[in-house]
């Protein structure tokens, strides 16, 4: 039964994706009269009108909107996201090349955020109103308020320029010869047993992951705390304590499991956002991910590239939410899809 439901939910993603495709296409064309060919030529001379017309024709920008939409949807049905106007390369390839960097950063941020947030959230709830609770909630409020670009630059100035502990930008050091298998540097270095590459990739990941994870850890810590407080007041927790169970077991096995349900929702939404790439963090740390790619594409009105990237983002969001729903049922069997 559960599998049938999962299949049904998965199939529902198809009409959603078609809707997203049309919406993205129209919204991009609704951006105030900007012309990708003119932007490509820049503010410099020696551009002929004939050349502009020819390029517009090649990119189908001279066709009526509905014809352009038809081309886009027909290509999409063949899983072809089209050709980037500015990079002159297939959109699918451009996104595929950058996805590992984005996923690796997202996964690291995610792990770092959870590793910080969940223990803090639990401790704050268990020691409610203690100095530890107030301090950690104060810090998490601070974390929530920090803009990513500011935190990133401060971390670089402190840990890269001042102490020289971490590199300023990039994914891996030059001179570390890593064989590219999956595109994920950490994974590739483990697969090839290259410890120097693993350490280098980890050091490059640390500051951007910390910057990106800061906001999420603050949100999650507050979420875990409030859910835990609610659950700890339930009768079954009192019963567990009355049975004489050790406090660690009461908290971790009985209370935390139920407290995690609302947290999973928040985490899933944030994780979806993470996978869409974080333009600011990717820009600050020179991280070659999808977020930066799409922002550059938007500024230069590279319609096919923006459309392709947003389709991937939408798909990621839908999948992450579906996974969150499935996860609910695993955490609490009383919930059904």
């Amino acid at each position, binding site marked *: 039964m559960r599998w049938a439901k999962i299949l049904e939910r998965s199939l529902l993603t198809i009409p959603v994706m078609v809707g997203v495709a049309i919406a993205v296409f129209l919204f991009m064309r609704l951006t105030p009269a*900007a012309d990708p060919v003119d*932007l490509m030529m*820049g503010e*410099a001379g020696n551009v002929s009108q004939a050349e502009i017309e*020819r390029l517009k024709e090649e990119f189908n920008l001279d066709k009526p909107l509905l014809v352009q939409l038809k081309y886009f949807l027909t290509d999409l049905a063949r899983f072809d996201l089209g050709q980037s106007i500015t990079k002159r390369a297939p959109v699918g390839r451009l996104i595929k090349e950058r996805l590992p960097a984005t996923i690796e950063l997202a996964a690291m941020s995610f792990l770092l955020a959870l590793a910080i947030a969940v223990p803090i959230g639990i401790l704050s709830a268990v020691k409610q109103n203690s100095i530890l609770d107030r301090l950690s909630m104060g810090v998490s409020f601070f974390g929530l308020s920090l803009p990513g670009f500011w935190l990133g630059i401060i971390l670089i100035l402190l840990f890269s320029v001042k102490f020289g502990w*971490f590199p300023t930008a990039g994914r891996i050091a030059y001179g570390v010869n890593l064989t590219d298998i999956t595109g994920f540097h950490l994974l590739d270095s483990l697969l090839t047993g290259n410890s120097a590459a693993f350490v280098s990739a980890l050091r490059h990941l640390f500051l951007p992951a910390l910057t990106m994870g800061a906001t999420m850890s603050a949100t999650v810590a507050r979420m875990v705390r409030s859910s835990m407080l609610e659950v700890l007041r339930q009768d079954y927790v009192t019963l567990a304590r009355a049975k004489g169970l050790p406090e*660690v077991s009461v908290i971790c096995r009985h209370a935390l499991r139920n407290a995690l349900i609302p947290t999973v929702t928040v985490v899933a939404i944030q994780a979806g956002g993470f996978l869409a790439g974080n333009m600011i963090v990717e820009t600050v*740390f020179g991280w070659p991910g999808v977020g930066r790619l799409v922002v550059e594409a938007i*500024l230069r*009105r590279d319609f096919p590239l923006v459309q392709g990237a947003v389709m991937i983002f939408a798909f990621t969001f839908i999948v992450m939410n579906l996974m969150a729903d499935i996860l609910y049922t695993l955490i609490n069997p009383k919930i059904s899809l």
Partner: protein
Amino acid sequence: MRRSRWFVVVGMALAVLVFLSGCGGSEPETESVGEAEQKDKIIVVGIKESIDTLDPALYRGRVTETVIRNMFDGLVTRTTDMEIVPELAVSWENPTPTEWIFYLREGVTFHNGDPFTADDVVYSFERIMIPESIDGESSPRSGMVGSMERVEKIDDYTVKFIFSEPWPIFLRMLPHHQMVPKNYIEEHGSAHFAQNPIGAGPFKFVRGQLDEEIVMERYDDYYGGSPDLPPVGPPAIKTAIFKVLPETATRVAALQAGDAHIIHAVPPHLANQLKADSNVEVKTAIGTRVFFLEFNVTKEPLDNVEVRRAINHAIDWDSIIDNVLEGYAVRTVVPAVPGCFGYNDEIKGYEYSPDKARNLLAVAGYPKGFSLVIDCESEFKDVTEAIAQMLNEVGIEASVRQWDGGVLKPKLVEGERHASFGSWGNSTMEPYDLFEPKLLPNERGNYSQYNNPEFNALFEKAAIIVDEEERAQIYRDIQALIVEDAPWAPGYSSQEIEACRSNVINWEPSPDNRINLHRVDLK
């Protein structure tokens, strides 16, 4: 018991941090910018944006050109003083106004060992000129070959360029064109070529991703480069890495941390911070962009020339250069880049005089001023706000509106706005490619909607006159005319601010922003 677990968790977290940071001492990357840079001579250049492509026929941007130019040589190149000197060509002649003959250097090879010949020159230009010749796509650079009709091979080391009408700026445009290997591209296709580029330049492509970094290595069989730009020979450094660092603060931090050796696009306020660092040198060159306030001459009250002149008098550009741009700009009173071909340095321009501005406004019928919105892209906000403030002092109620460039440009071209502050590039240093888009009617950069038959006639004349002195005189006359007619308030040419580690030698910034690493070395 619980407390001891807590200590274990904190202890583990600290251990990870210490491990990660402690690895720096013995890890190869620290070596790459420290000891190894001496051993293998590695130079890392921090660039401000992603590269579009590695195919010399498919790009338009300057940053892409900087990277490509280190792998591909052209027929000619430029010194940092913008003088045109031979590179893959040894000499040239201009037998008729529409024909140029180039004699090529012999013994030059591409990175795959193929010899460089006239066939490659013909092919390189045909890829740009002939529509859909790049795996079915057209080059966005066909405007950069002007009225070029065809390129003919005379023998293996001689080519002839034939134009449908004289195109005097050909030679100044030529450094922007790079030569590509015909046989290699025909065999492998343009898509493969863009990912595995082969040129005849000082460095060969090793690996890279367009928005991460491009790694190149010295081409040991390099012919040596232009004899006019010593030292001639293979590059001194072994490895050149162009690393994309879009955030300015990160680029500067990378330089200070030693993760980059050269960076460009340093903003004035950070240049002063860098000057305080003894490990870093800040260098400047007069840029090839000219900055100005443009008036829509078809809209009231800016259709009145006295009003435009009044605004010219009201702006204290020297103060803007000193206070907003921290001195990193050069004043120009004419609509041209200082030092360009035909630059008119005899014109005095409009001196800063609020009294004269008020008088002219009164003469024009606006003794109490008027309200005016000045548009600009957000990067020019500070200068535009300073201009608005100065206009307010003479009674013009000026305000600033910031836009995304992509949104603003079409509105300016359509003549929907009143006034805008911006810039235009003139990397050939020939006023032709500034005047054509900016001041000819219906051109893509004519935001002032300027249409003056006298200017149009002078421009058309200059465009085809080959005699340099005669052409320069027309350009000087045009500058006088434009200053008189005042469709712009010419402002300044900004300096290109770049910086390097103090152990970098033989490197000077170039007015056209190119960072050529052929001659660069490390102490």
